[in-house]
């Protein structure tokens, strides 16, 4: 990413895990072992790993649903043990897989739970409920008075997200929130979550075992195995440069299409040659190569135009180039 002159990009640590270990009394191996990690403010961090790798334990230690055996965790430089657990949790958004919506409460009351705990007045809470429902794409008029049982799985998860966002927390913890949804709903909610994150800029820690989900959402992927971190980095780096065979298997580095999906078309487009005919179709420079490839196959063309944000043609991408990228591990490509 290129910095504009004069623009200062803050990269402060929001959450700091310092040699955190969790051992269970009866287990001979620990769930999390001597783990240290810094999460930058505003980052979308995805904890990825097979079940039993300790990712959920790490997440739940962050809001003290699980207490670490040793080590310390701080949020914004304040030790999480310096205030009572319920108070800590009211400042952290929390979303879980089965939504955990309170079934006896209407949508509006579910969202109002934390504002009520913080003794907001009714008017402020009401305005906030409508705002949040709009944000997560549920028209308040239709949805406020419904019970969770009257919502689809995807709608329930949207309400779960709205509830977690209610008091505008700086930090969000999400434990496989989309795990029980069908593929189409899941993808749609992933896009919306990304949008919400870009809009509000909270620090998010998100647990999943789905690599596609991780790649789609994460600024940073943290790969865990047997209670420790195997590799941490941005999605492209993880997929193109796996630390070992475990990571490579987990993220499917050998999957050429996955690699293509991580590269922007603009980064690998070749400049128009003089005298060449402009291609019949084109896509935006920010669109990934996998999508471009799909368009080319679908339309039966071998060259596609790549346009900038203003719509001007920047260059072209042809099938040979795509084949080349799929085969090699590309180095960081300049835009």
């Amino acid at each position, binding site marked *: 990413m290129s910095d504009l002159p004069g623009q200062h990009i803050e990269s402060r640590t929001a959450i700091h895990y310092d040699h955190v270990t969790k051992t269970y009394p009866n287990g001979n191996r620990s769930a999390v072992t001597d783990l240290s990690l810094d999460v930058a403010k505003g980052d979308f961090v995805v904890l990825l790993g097979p079940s039993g790798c300790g990712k959920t334990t790490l997440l739940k230690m962050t809001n003290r649903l699980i207490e670490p055996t040793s080590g310390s965790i701080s949020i914004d430089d304040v030790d999480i043990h310096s205030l009572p657990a*319920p108070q800590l*949790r009211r400042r952290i958004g929390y979303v879980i897989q089965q939504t*955990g*919506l*309170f*079934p*006896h*409460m209407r949508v509006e009351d579910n969202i109002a739970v934390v504002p009520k705990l913080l003794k907001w007045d009714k008017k402020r809470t009401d305005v906030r409920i409508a705002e949040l429902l709009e944000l997560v794409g549920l028209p308040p008029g239709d949805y406020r008075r419904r019970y969770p049982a009257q919502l689809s799985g995807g709608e329930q998860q949207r309400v779960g997200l709205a509830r*977690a966002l209610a008091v505008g927390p700086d930090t969000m913890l999400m434990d496989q929130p989309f795990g029980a949804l069908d593929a189409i709903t899941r993808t749609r909610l992933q896009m919306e979550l990304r949008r919400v994150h870009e809009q509000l800029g909270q620090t998010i820690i998100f647990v999943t075992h789905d690599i596609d989900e991780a790649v789609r959402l994460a600024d940073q992927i943290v790969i865990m195995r047997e209670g420790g971190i195997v590799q941490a980095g941005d999605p492209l780096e993880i997929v193109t440069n796996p630390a070992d065979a475990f990571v490579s298997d987990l993220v499917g580095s050998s999957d050429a299409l996955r690699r293509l999906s991580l590269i922007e078309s603009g980064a690998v487009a070749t400049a128009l040659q003089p005298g060449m005919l402009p291609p019949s179709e084109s896509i935006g420079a920010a669109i990934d190569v996998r999508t471009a490839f799909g368009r080319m196959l679908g339309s039966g063309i071998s060259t596609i135009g790549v346009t900038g944000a203003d719509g001007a043609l920047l260059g072209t991408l042809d099938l040979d180039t795509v084949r080349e990228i799929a085969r090699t591990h590309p180095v960081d490509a300049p835009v």
Partner: protein
Amino acid sequence: MNFDYLIDNWREVLQLTWEHIVLCSLAILLAMVFAIPLGILISAFPRMRFTTIAILGAIYTIPSLAFLAFLIPSLGLGRQPAVVVLAAYAQLALVRNMQIGLTGVDPNVIEAASGVGMSSWQSLTRVRLPLALPVLIAGLRIATVSTISLATVTAWISAGGLGTLLFEGITFNRPSMILAGTVAITALALSTDLLLRLAERMTPASRALHSAQS
């Protein structure tokens, strides 16, 4: 056998029905004072469950006449010992349903309650009890209906109520009087059952559940 007694003495029957209601209400109120904390306690501490339920089950098997006779030396005759005995019998249904209701709440929902920052007390009063309420009311219904029928027997120690009609009917060999008592008790039990079934449906948890079908 005919309805003559009921027709000729409906004021008396009504008076005895009222006594019956007061007796049962007192018994159920006293029972709840013990059953609610006890139910919460054994849902929080699984180790106490087996013993508690076993003891309450044992109490439930004591024959009612023996139980009443047993209390005469200490509590004497009348309403007071009757209330104690009826409250003791009601414990099993109340405590067991309390525990089943509270432990039957979806663990995800309980985790969500602490996850959003509720204290354990807030989680109990705002989430677990409201969700357990239909089961609690079902327990209350079973306990109340069986108390209404058991309270007939307590007329034997002069606790009053509709049992009086049965005992006197037997003593004076007046089937019409027995019938009047039986009709009144049955009507009371059935209407109470209906009322509490309605209450069960009116709870937010049941309304939420049934809302899905509408």
